């Protein structure tokens, strides 16, 4: 089962001191996106119907679920960059 990430953590250390420790609850963004998707659903459906003869309608309908699958798969993404003076760490949990 796909579990979208709930938090994003960004940690920047410079010369041994923490410069930025950013903790962001990304689930708020997912909820906002879901609300927006529901709000715009009628408009998306109408656009898809209009563009159906040009074979774009199906793509428009499939982009939404594919996008949600993409954001749901970010959990586990880790990026760590280290140099002698600084360290940048970004991860999604």
């Amino acid at each position, binding site marked *: 089962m*796909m579990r979208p990430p709930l938090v994003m953590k960004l940690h920047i250390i410079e010369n041994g001191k923490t410069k930025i420790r950013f903790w962001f609850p990304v689930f708020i963004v997912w909820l906002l996106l879901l609300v927006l998707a529901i709000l715009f659903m009628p408009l998306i459906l109408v656009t898809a119907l209009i563009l159906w003869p040009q074979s*774009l309608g199906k*793509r428009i309908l*499939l*982009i939404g679920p*594919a*996008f949600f*699958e*993409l954001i*749901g*798969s*970010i*959990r*586990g*993404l*880790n*990026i*760590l*960059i*280290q*140099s*002698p003076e600084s360290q940048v760490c970004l991860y999604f949990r």
Partner: protein
Amino acid sequence: MSEDRRRILDMLAQGKITVEEADKLLAAISDSEGVPESQKAGEKKAFPKYLRVVVEPGPESVKKEKVNIRVPFQLLRAGIKLASLIPGDAQARIETHLKEKGIEMDLSNIKSDNLEELLIHLNDLTVDVDSGEEKVRIFCE
């Protein structure tokens, strides 16, 4: 030590079998033990979960920077699925730009079925590049 091996060695110690016979029996056991249990049962190999890219400074490096990236394969799968929804003319434009950068790639040929096949083979793959300035390792886990 397996039970069979112990039994053979016991028989040898008791003088019930000769050294040559024990050797033959032990060799026969090693052959059958050489095959992993998963292969014996005909199980499929597990898919790797993450693609790891590790860049480390080499002995001639000036920057001394380390990069460690872990990308979930699920994310790659989802990205390919999303890319397959890009309209044909936009895909052609992307391919042209990629070609200008020296990357030749036909996006329409990348399908999620191909990716599954690729993932099975990627499990055992490790790419090591050592240029003196940097060491790059790409592997799956």
